[in-house]
């Protein structure tokens, strides 16, 4: 079954999602950005409608649509006033299964993609996050950017995009989700009217080698002029989605840096006022994804902040979390879980993640039990087993001459590299 419906008559709104199990991990080496360009070219509209008329038709329905490409999925999302749902489904179906994929639109899209890469240079946090993944994962596909690079985009032709579309989208299996003011019966009937027959959707995960951690502590400075504030990312590999230690690690990470009142935020912001924000994040995927801490300290004490974070990290991993902190994190995760499902579209999203990304169904259905069952020993064992205090990637966006010496002097640093901000 590949249609999922979450009915709610609270508001006369409907959200639609059509998702394909294909993403940037399917980009061939050297042609990074292909999946995203393909999705965005499809978004320019179907055959028989100019881009302008397609946009007019969507807007007049009180609808918005987007194509979002991630590492493992391409999701066409739309939202519409309930009264115009049928008309929207017709338009979206034409866009997906009869896309124009015009050469003229492609040329404009490529110019826009290049301009977006250039505009990214204004955003220090994005620069830091991109460089962090690149430094952490090296040549592994997890280190790629969704949008590719200027040179990889240049290697992609419209023929290549059309071929990608034919192979990965046109006849591919897909999942449909509808949430909002529509009954399941009406949704099924409308989908049958407009969409190709639904089939069971099998995930086609790209065959990936495991991610590997680089030994030692390595600093990368993204050098940008005139920085008063720095963007600081410190991290290592985290966990796989199906890692048996995932839930213990989620609880342990929440106790360390997942809340405002946790030790990371309190030591960095509450006690010292060094950064507006301070948190740690645990990502998971088919292979081990990243675990990292983020802060934004002023340049004059950026290295001091990094040193403090390293100390806190060591303390967390070596001593583990206290019983009271563990129980607090469990209560926080269980009690706040209602905000992961307080709208129909959020409930739908969780279901689609199960179908599309291989998230085990029990992670959704038994979330509270899985969190509640974590013991202190589980949490501390998982932290020690997965989070390295020695193999760390440290990325800081800063003016290099202001911070290089102090970052090089951080304990255990094996290398320091300076990357100009316009080369990220």
């Amino acid at each position, binding site marked *: 079954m590949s249609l999922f419906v979450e009915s709610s008559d609270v*508001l006369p709104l409907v959200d639609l999602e059509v998702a394909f199990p294909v993403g940037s991990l399917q980009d061939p080496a050297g042609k990074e950005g292909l999946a995203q360009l393909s999705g965005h070219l499809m978004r320019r509209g179907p055959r028989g409608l100019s881009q302008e008329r397609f946009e*007019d038709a969507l807007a007049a329905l009180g609808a918005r649509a987007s194509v979002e490409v991630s590492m493992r999925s391409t999701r066409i999302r739309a*939202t519409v006033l309930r009264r115009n749902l049928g008309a929207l489904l017709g338009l979206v179906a034409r866009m997906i299964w009869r896309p124009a994929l015009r050469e003229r639109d492609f040329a404009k899209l490529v110019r826009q993609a290049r*301009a977006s890469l250039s505009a990214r240079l204004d955003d220090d946090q994005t620069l830091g996050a991109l460089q962090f993944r690149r430094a952490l994962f090296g040549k592994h596909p997890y280190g790629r950017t969704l949008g590719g690079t200027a040179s990889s985009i240049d290697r992609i032709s419209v023929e290549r995009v059309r071929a990608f579309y034919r192979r990965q989208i046109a006849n591919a299996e897909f999942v449909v989700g509808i949430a909002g003011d529509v009954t399941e019966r009406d949704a099924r009937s409308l989908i049958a009217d407009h969409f190709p027959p639904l089939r069971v959707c099998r995930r086609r995960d790209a065959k990936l080698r495991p991610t590997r951690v680089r030994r030692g502590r390595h600093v990368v400075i993204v050098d940008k002029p005139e920085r008063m*504030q720095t963007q600081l990312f410190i991290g290592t590999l985290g966990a796989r989605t199906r890692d048996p230690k995932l839930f213990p690690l989620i609880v342990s990470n929440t106790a360390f840096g997942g809340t405002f009142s946790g030790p990371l935020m309190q030591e960095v912001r*509450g006690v010292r006022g060094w950064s507006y924000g301070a948190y740690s994040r645990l990502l998971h995927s088919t292979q081990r994804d990243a675990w990292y801490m983020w802060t934004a300290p002023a340049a004059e004490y950026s290295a001091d902040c990094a040193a403090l974070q390293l100390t806190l990290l060591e303390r967390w991993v070596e001593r583990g979390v206290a019983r009271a902190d563990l129980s*607090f994190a469990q209560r926080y995760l269980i*009690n706040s879980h209602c905000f992961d499902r307080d709208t129909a579209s959020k409930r739908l999203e969780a279901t689609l993640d199960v179908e599309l990304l291989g998230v085990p169904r029990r992670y959704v259905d038994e979330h509270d039990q899985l969190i509640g069952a974590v013991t202190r020993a589980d949490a501390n064992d998982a932290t020690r087993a997965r989070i390295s205090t020695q193999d760390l990637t440290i990325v800081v966006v800063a003016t290099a001459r202001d911070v290089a010496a102090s970052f090089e002097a951080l304990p255990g640093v094996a290398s320091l590299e300076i990357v100009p901000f316009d080369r990220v």
Partner: protein
Amino acid sequence: MVAPQVLVERLNRGVSKRNARWTFVRDHGFGDVLTLRRFRLGNGLTVLTLVDRSAPTVSYHTWFRVGSRHERPGKTGLAHLFEHLMFNETRAHAHGDFDRLLEGAGAEANAATWTDWTYYYENAPRDALPLLVELEADRMANLVLRAPQVRSEKEVVANERKLRVDDDIEGRALELLYATAFRRHPYGWPTIGWMRDIRGFTVRDCQQFYRTHYSPANATVVLAGDFDEQKALRLVQKHYGAFPKTGRVESVAHPKEPSQRAERVAQLRAPTPSEKILLGYQAPSFCDPDTPALVVANEVLFGGRSSRLHRVFCIDEEIALSVRGSISPFVDPGLFEMWIFVREGKRRQDALALLDKELHKLASGGPTQLELEKAINQLELSFLHSMETAGGKAEQIGFYETVANDGSAVFSRLEAYREVTANDVKRVVTKYLRPSRRTRVEILGAQA
């Protein structure tokens, strides 16, 4: 639901203190099925309730009628600093308790400050309501303001300023725009404050500000979501009822900003590969009868991929990567802001000429019927999305109550959009979007 008069009678039974007695003021339909009710405690606290059982959550908002406009030169940023201080120690709770207790209950708490208001909110599982009422009442009256807390939060705010303004191109440009456009009105200084003012705040400044602005009569509590109205009002009565009655703080009448007769231009340089233009046209206040037509004009010009300026600038001419517009929702007249993110290798002068040409075209020809239909439907869509959660509803109610003096006016605003005609759009574009009424900030690359 129990009739409000009956509810008030029950709640007031046996309550002798005048400040703790409830008055029912009125109710308003809120969409097709919900009802917004307005109550007032004897000490002046206004409470708006919206029972909505669509999810097992509750949102608790406290809006204070104090923002950066209530500051004075030399003390800018004090309202925003308070937004931080309010999460600290009180006479009943040690430093850190506030966040710890709320997070343990699964609640999300945050706050925001702008020119005309400051608000604090919690979104929480419904069972946490007693805790929310207790903590919010406590910090309204019992905040402890001592040197260590003030010093630490000043440092956090200084860092926030560096993050959001000094090292952020858009933040710097917006600050320069308002400082250049407003020469008399306090809207000219930044809500986060000038750095020298942030560094200079004293504990005494904070204590004085707290005594002046943080009182029941200067606040509105909005409760939205899945809760028992009688129990909720009983809790509010218990925790706020002992607070003394104070008069509402009357806003100082600020000098009206004179009508601008010539364009003002300012420039800033930044390490960026592409130029940007930020424009601010003098615009009417949020409650001005011209504002709905101007909002529709904004939607015609900037509302998504089918809008006029997106099409011309980003698709046809490819002179900009993106364009966007918005109207400042202020109590006093503000600005109609427009951003043009010029593409690398394109000239900002050409972008500006193109903008003027398009504005002239809209002023002389007005929008088409299709454009009006698109604009209204898109505004309706945005409105509905803003109402999806209990927190979204509470925010809309609190904003309209504080800026427009009517928490239910969010629906009449949508009706006002529907009544806008093509001629209305022509008229307001002609009246407000003239080059002589604007301030222009040009952002140039460091090597330009």
